[in-house]
């Protein structure tokens, strides 16, 4: 450890941060629009990973190509979850949506457990073990793919929110629900789309996560915590903020590992998250 080369962990942290951002974007969007803390987000991402695994083992599809199939399915699932479960829960009590999200998480984890056994799986492809080099330093190619996917999804979501009518309606509904209704926006439908779009990003995140790390049916919880950390640092609801939050979290983790040993890297991440929460609950870049 710590042979003096700080560049390697720094680059690794930035690339890893792209993956964290990718995982957190959907969570951030759902929170920003509906003020819903989706405790099932980690499990929905892992569902995306299993989707990629299923398409790979059953149809022999490359996991990235498999997204063509899994994205529409996740979109529909997201729309249905919002329409039939979350949308109703909002009318019940303030804790109801949180509890429903917990229920969804429980169902997904155990359905995955029954379908795929608790064994650890991975999305291994022909390019999984390739690497690229910057100078003399070697980095795994999957990390670069993660980072690229993170940037693309973040920019796409941002462009969608800023430039399309539906995106503007989603933004408007997140800023003032009553005013949005009075402007003729069907907020129920808009919320459905927002959740469904968040699920697209979860499907993509699941695939890239599965190509980078092994996963089990219960991995969702640890990635949920990472996604929360990312969103808390970046500020809930802002796509660019979430991306920066992911990068910061990635760097904190790898540099933490570099200075204090790999075993303590996640502990440092959690401590940073708690400190940020205590000092600036709205996030470093939040309003």
């Amino acid at each position, binding site marked *: 450890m710590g042979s003096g080369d700080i560049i390697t962990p720094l680059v690794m942290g930035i690339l890893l941060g792209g993956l964290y951002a990718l995982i957190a974007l959907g969570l951030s969007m759902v929170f920003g629009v509906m003020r819903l803390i989706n405790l099932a987000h980690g499990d929905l991402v892992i569902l995306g990973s299993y989707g990629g695994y299923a398409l790979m083992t059953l149809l022999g599809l490359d996991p990235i190509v498999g997204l063509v199939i899994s994205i529409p399915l996740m979109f529909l699932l997201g729309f249905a979850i919002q329409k039939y479960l979350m949308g109703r829960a909002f009318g019940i009590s303030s804790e109801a949506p949180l509890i429903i999200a917990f229920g969804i998480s429980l169902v997904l984890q155990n359905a995955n457990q029954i379908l795929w056994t608790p064994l650890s799986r991975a999305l291994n492809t022909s390019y999984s073990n390739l690497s690229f080099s910057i100078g003399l330093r070697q980095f795994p190619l999957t990390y670069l793919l993660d980072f690229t996917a993170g940037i693309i999804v973040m920019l796409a979501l941002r462009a969608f929110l800023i430039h399309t009518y539906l995106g503007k309606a989603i933004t408007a509904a997140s800023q003032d629900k*009553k005013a949005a209704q009075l402007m003729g926006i069907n907020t129920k439908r808009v919320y459905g789309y927002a959740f469904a779009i968040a699920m697209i990003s979860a499907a993509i995140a699941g695939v890239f996560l599965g190509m980078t790390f092994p996963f089990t049916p219960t991995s969702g919880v640890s990635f949920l915590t990472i996604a929360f950390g990312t969103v808390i640092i970046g500020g809930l609801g802002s796509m660019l903020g979430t991306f920066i939050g992911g990068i910061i979290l990635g760097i904190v983790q790898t540099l933490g590992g570099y200075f204090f040993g790999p075993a303590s890297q996640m502990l440092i991440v959690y401590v940073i998250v708690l400190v940020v929460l205590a000092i600036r609950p709205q996030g470093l870049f939040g309003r």
Partner: protein
Amino acid sequence: MSDKPLLRITNIDVFHGTFQALWDVSVEIIRGETLALIGANTSGKTTLLDTISGLLHPAKGTIEFEGKDIAWLDPYQIVELGITQVPEGRRIFPDMSVLDNLLIGSYNGSARSKKSQNLEKVYQHFPRLQERRKQIAKTLSGGEQQMLAIGRGLMADPKLMLIDEMSLGLAPIVIDELFKALEQIKERGITILFVEQNVRRTLKEADRAYILETGRVALSGTATELCEEDRVKKAYFGVEVCGV
């Protein structure tokens, strides 16, 4: 068109949970007129507007717009039919640009195709909005925000416009400017129902008015009739000030 009302509200009761906010209220709006709704803070004016807009639904009674029952429609469907509300406190989208706020106004299907014409008209009413179209809405002054809120409502291409407490907290000069704009809007053939606490001003600007007291219609009539009414003089002016 004859004298068939544009909007006819018949004997509605409206509840907030278990609290009854409106009791047997009936209101008619004739096409092309400017109607004022007057009353103290908790008299149920905003409740009435929110019920017309579909945010609340009556427990009893009917609401007809152009002969169609709209009491149980959702807010977005009501906007589509041509009723738009400029809510109390303006409620512009604070972190969006002025232009985006206006564009959101034309979200409903029938208004979207006419958005460029309507945008032009809004800029004619409020040239300042055109100057500031790229500015973030929350950085506007109070009067400009109210202009934006009205402009955003116009973007929905309405037949009937409900305006709640437009002049609240604004300087007299700004209020004059806004009422001038309302006159132009009226000349375009848009029917206006507005809610105010400033009774003098209201009766000067409106053709007719309804006075609400604790959720019931206490009085109604043309503005001149109401000015003559002793009860109005006593309750709202102290002395006679109408016609000034």
